């Protein structure tokens, strides 16, 4: 395939600053945090790429979260994401500034945009990375991701093409602390957008509130799996979650059984979470699930089957009936 031109100096770590309705997505701020670490190792800058309308406030927020430079394209045709126009603007920016690394949140939008860009600028793209490092010897990006449903991990490199592109799932990386005294530069990017560039037309956008329960923000998650047995089992877990000030989580099989909404699902096909406390009840611990919760600070496992794989990631393991244990915990907490 066409090799990247060696005569060009590729530098800086770029982060796609995804906004919806004028609000920055958390994953973009998380990527700024990670991007800063990578940029420091490379003696480069971390830069945000922001497309939309009325971007001043968001640009300042990106600087407060660590961006050294914010590349801004402010145009009414960029207010909402569309594949064609966003791809056009961002590839133009890449060709103008030649970033070394480009990180994109693995949201529904990021996963629509990133492959389109990588095909247009002829570079590699690694999906859903869970770990990013810089190789000490050649300064290349080591991109680690789960494969085969999380059963194995693979470290991917993109040795001969730039930018090295990766998507990262929300909740995997950590944000910097917001600092309003940070100093950064805002650079306006001018481009002529033709309306013919937009081949898709958004007729309307529908928000569904019920999917808004944000288990990724929760400090405490009480999660249930197949072993919970039924919907009523989740009512009991909800009591415990409420008492602890937490929220409900679930394994894929609990969701597939219809006991709880998909928005609660933790794991490879659900959400990645890193709460302070994760209490897993009746979850056997398929590797897909463990991939989504193993970074919890403390994991409590309650399961009837002492051989359940999830015990491997437990800080505290309890072999027994979750109902009995949860009821006992509730009794003590209510005292």
């Amino acid at each position: 395939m066409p090799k990247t031109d060696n005569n060009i100096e590729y530098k800086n770590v770029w982060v796609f600053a995804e906004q919806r309705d004028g609000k920055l997505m958390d994953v973009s701020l998380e990527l700024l945090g990670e991007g800063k670490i990578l940029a420091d190792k490379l003696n480069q800058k971390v830069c945000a790429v922001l497309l939309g309308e009325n971007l001043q406030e968001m640009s300042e927020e990106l600087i407060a979260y660590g961006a050294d430079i914010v590349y801004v394209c402010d145009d009414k045709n960029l207010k909402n994401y569309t594949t064609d126009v966003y791809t056009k603007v961002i590839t133009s920016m890449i060709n103008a500034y030649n970033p070394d690394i480009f990180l994109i949140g693995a949201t529904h939008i990021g996963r629509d945009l990133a492959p389109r860009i990588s095909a247009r600028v002829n570079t590699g793209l690694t999906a859903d990375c869970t770990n990013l490092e810089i190789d000490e010897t050649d300064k290349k990006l080591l991109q680690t991701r789960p494969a085969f449903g999380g059963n194995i991990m693979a470290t991917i490199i993109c040795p001969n093409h730039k930018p090295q592109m990766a998507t990262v799932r929300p909740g995997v990386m950590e944000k910097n602390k917001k600092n309003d005294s940070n100093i950064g530069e805002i650079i306006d990017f001018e481009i002529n957008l033709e309306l013919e560039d937009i081949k898709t037309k958004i007729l309307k956008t529908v928000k569904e509130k019920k999917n808004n329960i944000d288990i990724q923000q929760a400090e405490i998650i009480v999660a249930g799996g197949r072993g919970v047995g039924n919907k009523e089992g989740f009512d009991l877990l909800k009591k415990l979650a409420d008492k602890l000030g937490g929220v409900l989580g679930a394994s894929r099989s609990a969701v597939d059984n219809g006991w709880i909404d998909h928005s609660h699902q933790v794991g490879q096909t659900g959400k990645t979470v890193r709460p302070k406390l994760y209490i897993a009840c009746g979850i056997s611990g398929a590797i897909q699930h463990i991939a989504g919760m193993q970074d919890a600070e403390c994991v409590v496992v309650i399961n009837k089957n002492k051989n359940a794989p999830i015990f491997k990631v437990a800080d505290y393991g309890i072999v027994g009936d979750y109902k009995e244990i949860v009821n006992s915990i509730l009794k003590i907490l209510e005292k």
Partner: protein
Amino acid sequence: MMNIIVCIKQVPDTTELKIDPVTGTLIRKGVPSIMNPDDKNALEQALLIKDTVENANVTVLTMGPSQATEVLKEALAMGADRAILLSDRKFGGADTWATSETISAAIKKIGNYDIIFAGRQAIDGDTAQVGPQIAERLNIPQVTYVKNFKIENDKVVVERSLEDGYEVIEVQMPVLLTAIKELNEPRYMSINGIFKVFGEGKEVTETWGVDDIEVNLDHIGLKGSPTQVKKTFTPEVRSKGEMLEGDANTIAKNLLSNLKSRHII
């Protein structure tokens, strides 16, 4: 007349995969191969169009080793009209960039398409990249995460799922759409279809190699892939925790005091 191409993939059923506890490697033996679930929804949508639109024609396309004809046969038995396997040693080891280069070359050869369907992502790689990359190489629009589909006049109107809702999008044809499982409920193979497709010695699929499509040899397979696998390993599991024992009350007390002393609660 409407021509539809559906890109499908044969994948190992990852829910059946296990790790060898001694060697720590993936046990592939005995793991069934299936049609990738999202691809089945993609195919179903194509067949639904065929059910309602006069003169609609559905071609299924896959890239893989010769055993991938199994999923093509399944697609034919579900109701597809034509099935093509892209198979050549030179295609092997391709990442998504090189895969989409190969598949889009085959689509150009098929030609004259109105809609290309693909699954959102395959369960073995979970990248969700090949669909959009094919659309880019064909220079056509795409809509990913499609959960509802209809044709209005000569345009396609779809619902694209987002994390907190959905968008209703109108797009002209030709277009590439990627399907998610909410889109529909895939049909089973029909008895007639099975009879037609799986009979002894029947040649129902076509196989195309590198000489059958127009593609730059430096853009395909392992050699044409910008990304490389540096290493693979089994996920680290954290060190063993503490097992709490006794009656439920003792365990509960013990647990809570541990959590409190660690300032977790």
